[in-house]
């Protein structure tokens, strides 16, 4: 019997494809988000509201991952965005290769922002890098204030956390302080935004999106001759 020592990341292949995706997106100055949250926390509703507010200011593309049906894609399309649907079948998360194929169907040069709505699941999608610039973890108050503590993987991996449905806070037992304390322990200093998508109360989220999108464009523009207007239109939109 002999032992072969290797020490390699098990998801190496996924990570390699993810980094290819990341390069493609960077080259075109597209800011990309992987939106992860439990089923029904309000991901598609948030995208709808975001598109309604921003679609005539910046160019937004959406990749919608779902186990089955194209209902989310239809809802998003109705708001005027380019959307590519990925049906994962039995797959409980998206992977970098699925996103790579979806990118082939999108005109990246014409985009400022790409949001990937991952399959509704707080656990499985977290470990799979897709090539995003930011992982956004989304919770809603109806799920309970212990969900950050019970899902440390998402909380720790997130660059931004959203807490949705705060309009329902008065009907459910949810202590914002408990939730915040767990978040702060797991991912010190991470930005957290409270939302009510249906009211709608999403200003801070929109500000965050616009500033990140702008920064991604500035970075690309720094390497290239400035395309007249783009950066300025964006700052006017703010």
């Amino acid at each position, binding site marked *: *019997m*002999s*032992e*072969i*020592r*290797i*020490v*390699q*990341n*098990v*998801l*190496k*292949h*996924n990570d390699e494809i993810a980094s290819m995706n990341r390069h493609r997106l960077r080259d075109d100055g597209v800011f990309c988000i992987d939106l992860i949250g439990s089923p029904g926390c309000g991901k598609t509703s948030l995208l709808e509201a975001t598109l309604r507010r921003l679609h005539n200011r910046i160019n937004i593309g959406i990749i919608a991952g779902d186990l089955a049906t194209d209902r989310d894609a239809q809802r998003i399309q109705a708001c005027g965005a380019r959307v590519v649907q990925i049906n994962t079948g*039995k*797959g*409980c*998360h998206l*992977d970098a290769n699925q996103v790579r194929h979806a990118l082939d169907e999108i005109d990246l040069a014409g985009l400022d922002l790409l949001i990937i709505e991952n399959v509704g699941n707080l*656990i*499985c*999608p*977290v*470990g*799979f890098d897709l090539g995003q610039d930011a992982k956004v973890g989304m919770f809603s108050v109806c799920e309970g204030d212990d969900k950050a*503590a019970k899902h*440390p*993987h998402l909380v*720790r*991996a997130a660059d931004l956390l959203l807490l949705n449905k705060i309009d329902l806070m008065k009907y459910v037992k949810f202590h914002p302080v408990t939730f915040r304390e*767990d978040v702060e*322990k*797991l991912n*010190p200093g991470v930005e957290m935004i409270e939302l009510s998508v249906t009211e709608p109360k999403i200003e801070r989220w929109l500000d965050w999106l616009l500033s990140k999108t702008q920064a991604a464009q500035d970075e690309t523009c720094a390497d290239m001759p400035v395309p007249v207007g783009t950066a300025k239109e964006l700052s006017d939109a703010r």
Partner: protein
Amino acid sequence: MHELSIARSLVGLVRESVPGGAVVKSVLVRVGPLQAIESGAMELSWCAATEGTVFEGAELLLTFVPWELGCRECGRSWSSDSWSDPCTCGSCRVDPVGGDELRLESIEVEDLPNRTASADAPRAVKRSQASKETRRV
């Protein structure tokens, strides 16, 4: 069930890492607590992913590593099954460190028997066979 994707990825990695014709006895993987891997689900997934391949029957050995915690007040560090332990100094300002590893560490293979000429064939040839197989998957 992200375990199934992980198992498939692992099979690909093992295939790349052993010389063609090697009989794999076991595969050792180190798992951090952030990976949220359930050992039963992982075992089933490994069986499904190796079924019908040359790795069918190989054993998957998981080493679950605990959380590494560090106290912000006194600087003590220790490991624990829970990320939310307070420190022995009484402080609750404790930071979890790392925890997201998912690493293939080693593969145990049976020594190749010297029965046939082909078993003695140079390694390079076997490697190229192995890589052809990888591409087919």
